[in-house]
């Protein structure tokens, strides 16, 4: 029985896309580095061209790699075992993303609980406050830094609350679409998937509006101290992930329209759905720790 369950192994044929991807990432790293250096000197350099070239190479790689992948999958080449490998791979990838956000959440907690408190004289740091930063008061949100930069603080009502509701609803609509796919109800799938994409776009639009509000009315910018730093880095990286997730959902939508996926075999859809739930969970943590508390 045990032997029966194991099919003959499937090993994908060699492919040019990985090396194209490596060249793309190399160009992006080299170009991004020089772009940043050029920008810091207000100089027009060639860095940005290399960076854009790298992004173009990566886009070509993504199209080519996924095209091959989808063709191979649609022609029934893949085994169930390979499907499991993909699923596990995606799960571990999401775990690595969680750890990336954990680094920034860690910075936020450290700043709130330790750094700012100590600068304000907590524990045995009275002289730090007295001598180095006289007059500094430990408050959170840190609307006035020890160096004297002032800014407003972002409340949690209004846009952030709407966005929370939107993203939580979108997690449900994404799930309904998934259920539709598994039950073979294509209409339910298309409709709920479309709604999920629209909700994702609304979220991104409102997030942009929130940034405009923060920059123009609150004076809260990326360089206004540790509060602004953690606010923009956390919400910014989250926003990038939502953008990516939305693009993935749109690709899934196009594939659904083309008639891809079956109730049994739909790894790409499942991975996208997992990713979407992941960005949702990250947002809920963000909402609690960055906005509310």
């Amino acid at each position: 029985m045990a032997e029966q369950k194991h099919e003959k192994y499937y090993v994908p044929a060699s492919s040019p896309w990985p090396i194209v991807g490596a060249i793309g990432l190399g160009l992006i790293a080299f170009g991004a580095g020089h772009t940043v250096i050029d920008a810091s000197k207000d100089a027009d350099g060639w860095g940005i061209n290399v960076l854009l070239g790298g992004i173009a190479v990566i886009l070509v790689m993504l199209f080519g790699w996924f095209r091959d992948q989808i063709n191979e999958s649609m022609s029934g080449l893949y085994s169930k075992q390979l499907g499991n490998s993909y699923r596990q791979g995606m799960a571990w990838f999401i775990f690595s993303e969680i750890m990336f956000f954990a680094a920034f959440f860690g910075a936020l907690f450290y700043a709130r609980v330790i750094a700012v408190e100590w600068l304000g004289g907590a524990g045995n740091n009275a002289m730090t406050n007295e001598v180095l930063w006289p007059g500094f008061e430990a408050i959170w949100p840190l609307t006035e830094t020890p160096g004297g930069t002032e800014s407003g603080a972002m409340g949690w009502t209004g846009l952030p609350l709407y966005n929370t509701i939107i993203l939580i609803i979108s997690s449900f609509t994404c799930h309904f679409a998934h259920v539709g796919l598994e039950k073979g109800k294509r209409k339910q799938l298309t409709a709920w998937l479309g709604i999920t994409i629209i909700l994702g776009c609304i979220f991104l639009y409102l997030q942009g509006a929130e940034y405009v509000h923060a920059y123009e009315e609150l004076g809260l910018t990326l360089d206004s101290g540790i509060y602004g730093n953690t606010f923009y880095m956390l919400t910014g990286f989250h926003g990038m992930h939502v953008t990516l997730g939305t693009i993935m959902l749109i690709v899934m939508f196009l594939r659904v329209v083309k008639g891809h996926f079956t109730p049994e075999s739909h790894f790409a859809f499942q991975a996208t759905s997992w990713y979407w739930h992941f960005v949702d969970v990250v947002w809920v943590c963000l909402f609690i720790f960055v906005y509310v508390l």
Partner: protein
Amino acid sequence: MSTVVGEVDQHDDHHHHAPSGITRWLFTTNHKDIGSLYLWFSFIMFLVGGSMAMVIRAELFQPGLQLVDPHFFNQMTTVHGLIMVFGAVMPAFTGLANWMIPMMIGAPDMALPRMNNWSFWILPFAFSILLASLFMEGGGPAFGWTFYAPLSTTYSSDSTALFVFSVHIMGISSIMGAINVIVTIMNMRAPGMSYMKMPLFVWTWFITAFLLIAVMPVLAGAVTMVLTDKYFGTSFFDAAGGGDPVLFQHIFWFFGHPEVYIMILPSFGIVSAIIPAFSRKKLFGYASMVYATAAIAGLSFLVWAHHMFTTGMPVFAELFFMYCTMLISVPTGVKVFNWVATMWRGSISFETPMLFALAFVILFTIGGFSGLMLAITPVDFQYHDTYFVVAHFHYVLVSGAIFSIMAAAYYWLPKWTGHMYDEKLAKTHFWASLISVNVLFFPMHFAGLAGMPRRIPDYSIAFADINQIVSIGGFAFGLSQLIFLWVVIKCVKGGEKAPTKPWEGAEGLEWTVPSPAPYHTFDTPPEVK
């Protein structure tokens, strides 16, 4: 349930001859080809990083400034560390994982072969960028491989941006490699190969892969914050903005401590394969080895601040990290005990892999003991940032990790190439390495205890003799590694034909296939009883 595999494609994928030409290496999805690429790359990086160490030792041969200016000296210590950690040791282990894990668990290949190729080919680009940054105006990274803020933010040169992005893509490569290993182990084991039957090399890599996926993203976060602090006006590590330079050290070492176990756990697996083979006995305490590895990995997340005892922490935190650190010696002790117990009353023979494994056990333990000394908070105040620390981590990384990689190379070379290596030459390599590595690193303990600070190009005349001895050891160790290169090339080109199982006491699926191992090892899963 089962998907039918097309006949035509099967023929294409499962032929047993390697394709030829340059595209074989560029487009490959074969775990053995990718493993070889990793191993060769890591050896080249070992020589590059090693030659930087030679520059350091040449400058330190005499007190005073002779050869290089201090800023360049700092770049050498920094890039030497980065190259050895990310370019030599980690890719060497990934190469060994690629070669051996599919063979050991009865799989045809890694679970995600194309991603496997991608994760390798990122590395040459990442390290070209890092090395090229040395030639920029203002020089390359010069803040130590730990890139502490504010050295890496306020006081660093322009090349920092390139450093940051090259670390980013190295991290992407490591994470993809680790995902591949972990998925291969979870999903590709042959029927009957239950978790507790897996060879220890597979087990230790399983846990290592978990550590990699958990901490490489944290490193990505750390370099990102350095980038934004330096170029985009954030103040994560700047008190004026409400941040704290100590925060950098917390984030970095939360990555950094698991990272050092990433560089030693696979060694444990290698040594646990070699010692039983040449003692002609089963490994003593297999299950306890597995649990000890898991315990070390778990504890590695709770000890990071022992790198920061002198940085400034509440006493409670210092004590907490001190006790957690000392606790690690318990599972490590279990391992060393088991290796010794395996040899007890075994019928031991001393071929080169065994010699390296034995040297590993003894020298790694010395490194472990000096680690225990460093773990004690009050005395660490004296040892911190001295050559004692340098001696400690080079004992665990050079005579630990690197020696185990050498042992693994000799142990499996017959399986990889189909030829036996030149035993006499290999033994010369071993003895030359063993003697020179101790001449190189042992006196550093004394220099450190006497107060010689690390990362400084000049020193008090009192340390002149000791540094001269150390430098001679360093040059000798560097040259000895060329013997290794010679042995490997000779073995690849020819030599006595290797039988399926060249080592009498060796166990495992890799010794059931011919030498050299066929291009795709197992078409259908072998049976494991």
